[in-house]
């Protein structure tokens, strides 16, 4: 039954249904997520955007299986996050690069290969063997070259710029050949120029691998540029305020950043954000 759902899950490859999460913060209770629903179809790039503290990272941690929801459920390809982790179906890119300083770039990208080797034996992976994925997917070096790290394969993280470190972290996640890639503001610490370059390199790799992505960001432009759907969240308590489908052609290139179509989408996201903000201010504060 599980397998059947795994095949017929075009509707919701990643599904969060009615999830609530409350933190005990000393005497206060902080409602990080309040009845949140999220559905991500396979092969889509979905961004989650919202003000600081609205529960974006919490949502991502639930999907990654790092935390459990208090109520509601999370499914990845019909499986619980714990099962998905056992099968190495999830790639996670945290807000800091989280590289191992004693390994070089290539070593960092390969280290996850070496842990939980049993994952490959734990059952068939429906989409892992898709034919068009071959050249980048199985080859960390090719992946790193495509992300502009071909020159620094044997450097340690301490010898890299922030942008290079963050791209290494992304390569590490892609190298797992995950079913779902979760990224928590991977570019937020980069300056504007470095960030744009990193975004375009990510788009380039994604264009080829078409991994299902949930991408948390603070930047409206980044959300629109990268994704198929932008999920707008509101704070206090954290909830989904609405979604914007991004109808821009792929592959997307840097020229798009100045286009009217992009600005039009940015405008719609911004409107959603601000109306959610005012609704929240009227109701809660």
């Amino acid at each position, binding site marked *: 039954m599980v397998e059947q759902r795994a095949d017929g899950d075009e509707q919701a490859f990643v599904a969060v249904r009615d999830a609530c999460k409350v933190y005990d913060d000393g005497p206060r209770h902080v409602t990080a997520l309040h009845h949140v629903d999220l559905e991500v179809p396979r092969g889509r790039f979905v961004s989650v955007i919202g003000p600081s503290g609205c529960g974006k990272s919490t949502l991502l941690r639930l999907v*990654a299986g790092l935390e459990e929801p208090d109520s509601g459920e999370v499914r990845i390809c019909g499986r619980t996050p714990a099962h998905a*982790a056992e099968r190495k179906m999830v790639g996670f890119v945290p807000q800091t690069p*989280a590289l191992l300083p004693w390994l070089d770039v290539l070593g960092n990208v390969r280290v996850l290969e070496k842990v939980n080797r049993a994952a490959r034996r734990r059952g068939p992976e429906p989409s892992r063997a898709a034919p068009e994925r071959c050249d980048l997917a199985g080859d960390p070096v090719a992946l790193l070259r495509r992300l502009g790290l071909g020159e620094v394969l044997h450097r340690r993280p301490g010898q890299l710029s922030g942008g290079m470190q963050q791209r290494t972290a992304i390569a590490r996640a892609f190298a797992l050949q995950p079913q779902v890639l979760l990224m928590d503001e991977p570019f937020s610490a980069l300056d504007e120029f470095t960030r744009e370059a990193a975004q375009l390199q990510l788009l380039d790799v994604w264009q080829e691998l078409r991994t299902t992505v949930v991408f948390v960001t603070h930047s409206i432009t980044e959300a629109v540029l990268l994704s198929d759907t932008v999920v707008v969240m509101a704070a206090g308590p954290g909830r989904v305020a609405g979604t914007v489908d991004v109808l821009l052609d792929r592959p997307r290139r840097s020229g798009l950043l100045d286009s009217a179509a992009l600005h039009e989408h940015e405008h719609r996201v911004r409107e959603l954000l601000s109306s959610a903000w005012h609704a929240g201010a009227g109701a809660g504060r």
Partner: protein
Amino acid sequence: MSLQPRAPRPRPAAARARTWAAALHPRVWSPTLVALAVAAAVWSWVARRSPYVLPAPGSVVEQLAGDPGLYLVNAWATLSEALLGLAAGAAAAFAVAVAVSESVLLRRAVMPLAVVLNVTPVVAIAPALVVAFGFGILPKVVVAALTTFFPVLMNTATGLRSVPREVLQVFRTVHASRWDVLVRLRFPSALPFVFAALRVVFPLSLVGAIVAEFSAAGATAGLGTIIKVAAANSQLDRVFASIGCLALMGALLLLVVTTVERRVLSWHSSQAR
């Protein structure tokens, strides 16, 4: 996309040669030399004025040159006690640190005992150990091990816990086993802490060995015995010849640790130059 050449390894031979050349530059060694000369001058001056405070440097050198065999044999005795103690103490501390970092239960059971052990002065324990283990090498090794144990335990335990949360999260999302986390994350993360402890403890183990020798003076070999007996007979040149040997041994031990550390921790910021 063309095949790019491998980036060079961090420290090729040329760079090493340059480092050596830099180390030989007068700017590097001349301040040390001047300080040594000043110290020697002050020493001779004091020695001439009050020979019961400091022996003349010349007489110390004579003493060493007159019977090098005596000092070599006894230095070796002390050094081997210290090294055996180091090995035993550090190994035990490492094992306990791993156990304690993996199990809260063990942490609660063991850590208070370790702290009590640490606050008890080794000088006070040493005579009891001599009574318990006799005049052989064993009590010295035990005291040296005791001086080593606690710093290594505390630092290693801290180091094993120093893996950043986000790195642990990445490993959890691929369902890494505890063993993988221990070996691939915790051990390497602990290394800088372990070396920081070793830098303290390598010279300190000599102190442990000497203290134990004092407690059984006369009955055993070792520089501690020589010092104790010579001091009782007011043979200051002998005392200082032994002290000189100890200082040299301590410096050598420290050199060994820092050299190994430089190799092993080349990735760590503490080794940046």
